[in-house]
């Protein structure tokens, strides 16, 4: 089973009502662990409300790369009664739950419970009730045997604006929680120390934002919608520093049309939404295609139809993204499974959309959007930037210019309006080479050939092969795309001792990469058992593979309760298939 050779591996869950500060505790602890050199994975589960309800934040830290959440937890920080009610059974044999009996109005006598007066200690430290969170954070560090030095550094950063007094009181509160546990938690048997240099801890929405800013995105227009909003917020936070306009549009229709206007005028543009908002953008997607205006669209999926589960996760918009938009036109769909992939694929999305003047999607989901991972660092050499526009003197020198000129590879010269005397004309109607409305059937066919058939082989050539991880001639292949990366990878790690097993993960899902580069169909064809793993009801990727290649997976594992796959549950289900 999992964890046999693992030297160190803990999971911590912080549960409570919305508004109690579980995210503050979670983010702070996760940062302490990543700065201590541990691999960290976090994920959140919350309801669609601002106050009340039951939410949790789960952190896994390990001295090996961690890519998914575990079902069992070692430390439970219970800020409400539901945390105990729902999650007590998840505690490991040596697991401990901490709570404040004065807040929960109940006492637990079992040895696995430790009553810590979070509130009282906070007030005694010279702070108010809200600092109970800092007491709890200090307490967790005390339970793990980690000192408060790194926590103090983090508090110094996060409380910079609140003044010296607040910082001092918070430090005192952390020490109070830490000290209380050292003295009173006799059953605490955890032990961690800083093990290496700090690691980068980053979420997928931040990674997409960073990738966009780094790729020269100058314009982001969107309408807020969970779970995509984080991308807009991140870019808006950096807008002033890096010269970006972030405009909150009146609706998603305006959002995509504004982005297309800015793109037409010469700047790299992006929009983002979730399924419902993207449904409104669909007309604009088709406009992007007809006018050959580049655009990057982040589509963060959540369970649907309609409003669905607003704060939960699903991978059910793959075929929607693939088929959205009236008419026939090329598009590219990326589905990162980690923050690293999100960063590099966002960069690639901008490059490809500019190069071929097409829409490119970055498909994520709530699970990814609200997760954080440790990353070793960014390989700057992997990032690309090419300006595919004809600008300034180069444009002025041309004797004539046609925005939609027929060319060998289907890519027309792309100028910036106002840069020269050459006019840049485009139309949502079928148009001639200059961009003017036409009714001519022959021109229409030539335009379709140019936009679609001529570009397609080049676009396909840009797509990287899926990632094969594990055994190189496997008996069992688990296949997936996007956010199932982590759980599939850990599954392979867990089973590879006894099984010839591999993961085939697609982060560049459409068009499918050429099998001339890497014949993944051959790998699948030779395996005894192939399983397609998806966070949706109908197996959309399995359908796509069948439609594009004719290959049919032996089995499918689908989860569609709005929750992500977790490792132990997934292993259980997989075992039922492979016996």
């Amino acid at each position, binding site marked *: 089973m999992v964890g046999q050779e693992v030297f160190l591996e803990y999971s911590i869950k912080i549960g409570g009502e919305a508004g109690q500060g579980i995210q503050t505790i979670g983010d702070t602890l996760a940062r302490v662990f990543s700065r201590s050199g541990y691999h960290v994975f976090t994920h959140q589960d919350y309801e669609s409300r601002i106050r009340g309800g039951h939410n949790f934040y789960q952190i896994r830290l390990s001295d090996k790369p961690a890519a998914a959440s575990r079902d069992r937890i070692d430390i439970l920080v219970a800020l409400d009664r539901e945390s105990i009610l729902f999650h007590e059974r998840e505690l490991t044999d040596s697991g401990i739950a901490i709570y404040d009996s004065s807040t929960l109005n109940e006492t637990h006598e079992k040895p696995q419970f430790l009553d810590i007066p979070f509130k009282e200690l906070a007030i005694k430290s010279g702070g108010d009730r809200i600092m109970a969170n800092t007491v709890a954070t200090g307490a967790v560090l005390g339970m793990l045997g980690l000192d408060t030095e790194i926590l103090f550094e983090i508090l110094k950063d996060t409380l910079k604006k609140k003044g010296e007094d607040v910082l001092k009181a918070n430090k005192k509160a952390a020490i109070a929680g830490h000290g209380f546990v050292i003295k009173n938690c006799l059953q605490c048997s955890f032990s961690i120390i800083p093990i290496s240099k700090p690691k980068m801890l980053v979420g997928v929405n931040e990674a997409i934002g960073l990738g966009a800013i*780094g790729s020269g995105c100058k314009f982001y227009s969107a309408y807020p919608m969970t779970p995509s909003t984080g991308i807009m917020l991140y870019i808006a936070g950096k807008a002033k520093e890096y010269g970006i306009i972030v405009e909150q549009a009146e609706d998603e229709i305006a959002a995509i049309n504004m982005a297309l206007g800015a793109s*037409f005028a010469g700047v790299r543009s992006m929009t983002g939404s979730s399924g419902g908002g993207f449904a409104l953008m669909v007309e604009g997607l088709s406009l992007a295609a007809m006018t050959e205006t580049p655009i990057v669209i982040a589509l963060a999926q959540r369970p649907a139809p309609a409003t669905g589960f607003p704060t939960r996760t699903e991978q059910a918009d793959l075929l929607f993204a693939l088929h959205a938009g009236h008419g026939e036109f090329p598009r590219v769909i990326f589905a990162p499974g980690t923050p690293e992939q999100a960063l590099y694929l966002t960069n690639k999305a901008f490059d490809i959309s500019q190069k071929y003047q097409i829409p490119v999607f970055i498909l994520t989901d709530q699970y990814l959007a609200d997760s954080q991972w440790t990353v070793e660092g960014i390989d700057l050499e992997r990032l690309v930037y090419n300006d595919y526009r004809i600008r300034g003197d180069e444009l002025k020198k041309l004797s004539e210019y046609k925005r939609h000129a027929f060319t060998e590879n289907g890519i027309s010269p792309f100028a910036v*309006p*106002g840069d020269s005397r*050459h006019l840049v004309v485009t139309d949502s109607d079928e148009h001639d080479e200059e961009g003017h409305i036409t009714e001519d059937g022959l021109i229409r066919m030539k335009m379709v050939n140019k936009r679609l058939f001529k570009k397609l082989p080049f676009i396909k050539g840009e797509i990287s092969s899926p990632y094969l991880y594990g055994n190189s001639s496997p008996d069992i292949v688990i296949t997936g795309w996007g956010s199932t990366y982590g759980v599939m990878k850990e599954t392979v790690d867990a089973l590879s001792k006894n099984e010839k097993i591999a993961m085939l993960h697609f982060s560049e899902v459409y068009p499918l990469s050429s099998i001339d580069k890497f014949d993944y169909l051959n790998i699948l064809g030779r395996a005894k058992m192939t399983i397609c793993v998806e966070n949706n009801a109908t197996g959309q990727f399995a359908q796509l593979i069948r439609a594009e290649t004719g290959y049919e997976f032996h089995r499918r594992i689908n989860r569609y309760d709005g929750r992500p796959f977790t490792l132990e549950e997934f292993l259980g289900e997989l075992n039922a298939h492979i016996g």
Partner: protein
Amino acid sequence: MPTLDDYKGQIPAWCPGCGNFGILKAFKEAFVELGIEPHEFTIVSGIGQSSKFPHYVRCNTFNGLHGRTLPVATGVRLANHEMLVLAVAGDGDCYGEGGNHLMHAIRRNISVKLFVHDNQIYGLTKGQASPTSMEGMVTKNQPFGVLSEQLNPMVMAIALDCSFVARGYAGDQEHLKGLIKEAVNHKGFSIVDILQPCVTFNNVNTYAWYGQRVYHIESDYNPEDRMKAFQKALEWGERIPIGIIYKNNRPTFEERVPVIKDTPLVSQSFGLNILRAITEEISREFY
């Protein structure tokens, strides 16, 4: 200096006698008089007979979707606020399909010059009622007559404190030319609602109908008085005022966006070295 020849575009596909011809003529003359060259501005249009306009002008053109003129124009203007950006739409396009965008473009006060060819009917789809069709007008699609109240775009624009609100008439080209020039020279969002006879589908609001009713707003009228402007804008029926109804000096959206204070977005340089520097700089925050 440009001449009328510089503005010779495609051959119009409008019906003979269409009010759009008068608007096109006034527009070209205005631009020649303003001394603006074709490459110095962009027209964003939607879908409808009016939206074929930029093809007949010769200029940078984004002929987009029905109703979506203003968001595209907003994007163009924010990417390059040194470029003059015009939006040309019809009454169905701008007041029906794109009504929400109009409201918010006015709120933003983005410096886009909007010309609405308002023929009070749907021409391209052959004669259905538009938001500005008069109550009771019978069409094939409204056999009991139009049941909804006629939209008054001028009153709506003034209510939103639009920075330039004017009405013109396609049959009075000299006057219209003046309005177009005023709108272009105004700093801020400008709407010019242009009454335009549809000779094929609108049998009510004809050249004769408008001719009997339109009058030039008095020379001593003060367009900066908002309450008076409401009164003026409410006039419809026996007498219809044309001219500048309301204007103010609200700061524009572009002026208030700090990142384009010195340089338009489109002129801000970028490259591989900048990309790598930025990425490295930002990624430090994640440790």
